[in-house]
């Protein structure tokens, strides 16, 4: 399972990285989203993998997962949501101000053709 999750983190990160490096705002936003998936999963994984042991205190519980990374991921999810919202908005503003959706505001040939 550990290998599976590790590879998954890697794949999500790799795809995120590739998309973040694109020239248009929308793929970059998607890339940031994928990156945040990857890093949230990673952060989550630092609490190691436990199945069926949520950190809810009860007498019957056989054990508990590490709750701290979960709390951190929760915070990270919210923050990255806020940031994503902001970038999305910003990409619209860029589109309005720059006339196209290139991250550097270049109008390029394909836009015209």
């Amino acid at each position: 399972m550990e290998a599976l999750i590790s590879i998954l983190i890697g794949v999500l990160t790799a795809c995120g990285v590739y998309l973040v490096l694109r020239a248009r705002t929308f793929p970059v936003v998607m890339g940031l989203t994928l990156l945040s998936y990857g890093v949230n999963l990673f952060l989550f994984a630092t609490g190691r993998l436990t199945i069926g042991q949520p950190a809810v205190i009860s007498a019957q519980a056989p054990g508990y997962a590490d709750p701290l990374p979960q709390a951190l991921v929760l915070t990270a999810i919210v923050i990255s949501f806020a940031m994503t919202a902001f970038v999305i908005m910003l990409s619209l503003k860029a589109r309005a101000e720059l006339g196209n959706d290139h991250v550097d505001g270049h109008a390029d040939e394909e836009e015209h053709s």
Partner: protein
Amino acid sequence: MLECCDPINASHSQRLIMNLTLVVLVPFLGAALTGWVSRYGRLRSAWMAGAVTALALACLLPSLPVPFTGEPLIQRLPWMPGLGLDLVFRLDGLGLLFAMMILGIGLLVIIYARYYLDADDCMGRFYAYLLLFMGSMLGIVLAENLILLLMFWELTSLSSFLLISYWRHRQDARQGARMALTVTGLGGLALLGGFLLLGEIAGSYELSVILASGEAIRAHPLYSPMLVLVLLGAFTKSAQFPFHFWLPRAMAAPTPVSAYLHSATMVKAGIFLLARLFPALSGTPLWSVLVMSAGLATLLIGAWIALFKHDLKGLLAYSTVSHLGLITLLFGIGTPLAAVAGVFHIINHATFKASLFMAAGIIDHECGTRDMRRINGLWHFMPYTATLAMVASASMAGVPLFNGFLSKEMFFAEAANFFDLSTWSWVLPVTVVIASALAVAYSLRFIHDVFFNGEPHDLQRTPHEPPHWMKVPVEILVAICLLVGIFPGFTVEPLLAVAADSVLQCNSPAHDLAIWHGFNSAFAMSVIALLGGLLIYAARRPLFMIAARHEGLIDAGVLFGRTQQAVIGAARAVTTAFDTGSLQRLVALLLIGALGLGAVGLLGVSAPLTGTATLVPADGISLIVALGLGAGAIATTVLHRQRFTALIVVGVLGLLIALIFAKFSAPDLALTQLSVEVVTIVLLLLALYFLPQHTPAESSRVRRVRDLGLAAIAGLGTTALAWGILTRPGATISGYFLDNSVPGGGGSNVVNVILVDFRGFDTLGEITVLALAGLGIYAMLKGLRLPGMTLDPSGRPWNWDLHPTIMAALTRLLLPLALLVSAFIFLRGHNQPGGGFIAGLITAVALIMQYLTNGVEWTHRRLHGNMHPVIASGLLVGTLTGMASFVFGHPFLTSTFSHVHWPLVGDFELASAMAFDLGVYLVVVGSTLLILIHLGLMRSAATQERD
């Protein structure tokens, strides 16, 4: 080596009166005052400047006798003793000599400038700059601390920049000023380096210590670099070859400035430094080679160029260069007598050159030009001024009875002594004689070409004698030239002696300032130089032609200009090579840096990546989910150019991630991920409407390969990190949370207790981020107008049905249900999965659903759209809840809870963390709705202006 006799005992005499500090500070304060009084009449500033200078002189007076006792006067005001940097001043012979020159000639220049400046020149500004400069110069010569000296040194560069660029409308003035600043700035920085090293070597920046530890300094391994740096500073300031070019270009300054800066002060600062550090630094082969060769080259080149300058001030400027070379050469020769001669020539040059500049200024003033080809025969128009100028020129040429002759004789004697039959030793005397002959020639030219040589050509006006007071400064200076030249023993000798003593740090060797020393080699050289000068001047026409042919061939100034352009060009090239304004490059660099350093971290030590923990076996469903997730991620990447499609796939990714969270014991995370995912999708859809539906294929192949490479490495790297961590048994602080969640935090959902209690502060920050996102987006929307798509991506008109009936009717049904669920999630969050954040998202989504299905107008009639108060009260509720614990003397966010028993109702738990969670809830609802609603409203806003 220094042939030093009994060294002066450098005992420090402390005086209570801080008059030296005042001497330096008065001009600075006076500068401000002068600038201020000029508002009330331009001439007042001249009077004020004169008064300030006189005051500074007066401050100096009480200490005048001290240097003659043989002990320097040292006064200290502590500033940064820990750094060895105090406001500490020193008055010894050298300092005294220079201070007198600076103040004396300064006063004359102030008088002179009063008449020189035109009515439309701002006099207050001029005098303010001049006083700034004067103060800086005084600081240099009176500083006991090298760093203090350096500070004033740089201030002279800055104030001379202001003075040279005084006529700011003139391009040559601006360029000259910048060039001077650049070259002297370079020198100043080199000097800083040199002084730092010197201080390190000597263990102190104080001259008393440094001058006493010459042996140790010269023996130190850092001596050579230090010397080079210090000399660089001195040479640039004193316009030594090859840094001489800035000086002639500084002639764009008003002539009083030239008379002041380029005779007695600015350029003498470098010479002063050579003299100042002479005991500590001189006496090594390196010193001799560097200082002598610079001096010699400057002497010769300056004299040669001076001869051919048609510009009056140009001639004087290059002559200055040449004389500075002469003095440098003397210090380079390094014998005590040479040093004495050097000091003597400093005085002499200052007097005759200042008077010459002033005379040139008068001529310029009267003729409206400085071109010697046009100025001729002024003897007829201004005989008195001509006489003065001719006396000063004679002194410059080294004609007997004038002061220049005396120091030049000493110089010839030292040059002759240098000749010791070794292979190259003849070079020095020969060159010296040639240079002197050139000096005679250009002095002759100055006299003949200006005052005789026929009639003036097309002058704007008829020249005549200047106002009386404009001549007075020249008269005084010329008188000094004569007095010193004829009665050296009565006039200059005591000052020279005490100055030379302090240069040598011992009693200076016997020197006879008589005019006549008999027929010795020096006299012979003088005669040869005079005759040679006459010869050269006689042969000037062919020489001028030769010079004209080679003009500009090797012009260091042009070279400098090209160098500067090249440096700026290189700077542009380098800067634009890095900073292309490309986000992709920015991100790529960040990633490369991170991947590189990450690799260094991981591979830099031989530690196993795989740990020792027992692993969890994989099961089928996890495999499928993981495969789906991986395939989805790759699909998003491959399909990313079809934006809507990619968006759908991203939705699936979020769902699968939530599943993984659920599977691995994180129900809270699963809930959060699910809710956030949907809101994100809605957000992306809202945005996509205003964006192109497809991403053009525009990345080059190279770029794609590079990005794929980066992506692959990033993937491998994070996989390795995750694998390394997952395979290690973890030992974390989480046990504490599990142990204290119920007894200390009053909740059994540990994750939630961490969020609202153990690490509630994180959550406070997190909701602030959310609030900020809302506010930031709202702020950004102002004035934003974007056309949406008028046709759908396939080119068809949009569907007519804005709000499909079936959808609209049923989602209204869902609203109360969703709100109930939201309340449920909120209330149980402390003990079971849930909490304020998820509840907030559910509420927000339930309301968004109304917008989606019923439209903005319909919903807005039912829901108050102003979310700012909601966000603000959320933040306030969270903060105030945290502050409530202040009342009980506990830190912020200290939680409390109690079980309340109400009859019939049963046990209720009341926890302060719930109130905090309410703040979270409000911020989430407010921010999410603010963002989505206003984004959704954008198109309507495009047509009709709203808030």
